[in-house]
């Protein structure tokens, strides 16, 4: 487990699934974490299960500039600095295909998954120490890389996150800002978010079929992502920048 003591990391989407696992893993690695989520009830619960001096919850709609400002202000006020950002918050729709796409769903998925990530990165570069440095990990997706046929807006947003990540890495290097920016691309991970893909009466069959699309033969677990995120935030990844790490059980290998 990498040593993240001294780190102060903001994690979005921290109320459930991968974000919650990231918050837990980072605290275990010695970081102090600001958990952020639009769901304040569950976010408070996840934070309450972590050591009080290492974790706090702040409600955040990632598409809101003013709420991002409040999140950074809270982190700076409580812990004195920010050294890491994990943009994990994301949303998906059950029917995300061309013939069903409505403006509101399209816009919501882009706002949360792509614009929310950009706003977080923008805030981080404003508040992080540009000399002592920091690290950002954005959540892209295998669906930002390969078409799956049922994730139209989601694929657009995640493809955007992949290139946003590389663009930020290039910017920071060109400006000699010592912030690294990388992405992780999960396969299908066993979280509440993928439950929208399962029909009510065939949940187990649908889940098995989805697992079978990964050569490794199983769905990912949130901790699989949390450990990759901890690696990328740590000094073990000091020479890793602008990369996109697939954590996908071989999904994109084939």
């Amino acid at each position, binding site marked *: 487990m990498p040593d993240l003591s001294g780190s102060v990391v903001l994690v979005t989407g921290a109320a459930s699934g991968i974000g919650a696992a990231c918050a837990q893993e980072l605290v275990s690695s010695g970081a102090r974490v600001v958990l952020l989520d639009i769901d304040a009830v569950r976010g408070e619960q996840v934070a309450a299960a972590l050591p009080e001096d290492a974790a706090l919850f702040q409600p955040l709609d990632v598409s809101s500039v003013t709420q991002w400002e409040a999140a950074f202000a809270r982190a700076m006020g409580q812990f004195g600095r920010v050294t890491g950002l994990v943009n994990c918050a994301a949303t998906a729709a059950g029917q995300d295909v061309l013939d069903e796409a409505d403006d509101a769903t399209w816009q919501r998925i882009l706002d949360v998954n792509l614009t929310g990530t950009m706003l977080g990165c923008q805030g981080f570069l404003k508040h992080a120490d540009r000399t002592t440095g920091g690290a950002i990990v954005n959540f892209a997706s295998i669906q930002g890389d390969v078409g799956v046929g049922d994730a139209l807006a989601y694929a657009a947003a995640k493809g955007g996150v992949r290139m946003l*990540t590389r663009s930020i890495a290039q910017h920071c290097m060109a400006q000699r800002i010592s912030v690294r920016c990388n992405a992780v691309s999960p396969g299908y991970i066993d979280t509440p978010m993928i439950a929208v893909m399962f029909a009510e009466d065939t949940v187990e069959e649908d889940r098995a079929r989805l697992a079978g699309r990964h050569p490794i033969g199983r769905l990912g677990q949130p901790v699989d992502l949390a450990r990759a995120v901890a690696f990328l935030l740590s000094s*073990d990844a000091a020479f890793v920048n602008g990369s996109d790490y697939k954590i996908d059980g*071989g999904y994109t290998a*084939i």
Partner: protein
Amino acid sequence: MARFQNDVALVTGAGSGIGQATARRLAGEGVAVLACDRDGAALDALLGGPGRIEAMAFDVTSRKGWQDAVTTANQAFGRLTILVNGAGILRRNTIENVDLETWNEVLSVNVTGTFLGCQAAVPLMRKGRGAIVNISSVSGQRGDADLCAYDASKGAVRGFTRELAAYLARRGDPVRCNAVFPGIIDTAMVRTFFSDNPDAEPEWQAVNPAGRYGTAADVAALIAFLASADASFCTGGEFNVDGGATA
């Protein structure tokens, strides 16, 4: 819980650079390591340090050498769970001046050596568990004007890694296979290349936005992650450690 539990690694190219740093890093995390290199004397630097490290000299282009190495690891430590194909060579040439002898030399070490290692190690790993880490390069992802054979070899490692990962996973074998893609790393191989080809370094620097070269330890840290249980959902992946060179 430690991310390595009763692991045994076979690391080639361990006489210098990335292989050597990887052997050190794994041994430092409690992994028993069979450190291998064509140049046996180069392995002395690893002996007597912390951790359990045994040394063995063999040539990765030799099938017999690989069989002996895997047998040695199994006899010395009772199993084999990690294979790091660290051996590699770098030669300067373009499509117009590459001779067949050099081309074959580069392919046999970088590609065939990796293939032979996987073929020798997988039967043992599949009985328990395994993680293979191959060394590709950013040169396997984008072209360099003067590294014709090297680029082809690293592209081959890239494709081979994905294919092997898919094959093993589809069979249900508990063996993962990933590749790392280093940028310019400050190793003996690269330093020798620059001293032999003084005009090459400025060209390379132009595609190295980090402002520094990576260290062998930077790459070893990523290899250790991929070899460990922390990466148990990673297979067939491409993991860059290139200071932003491919961003």
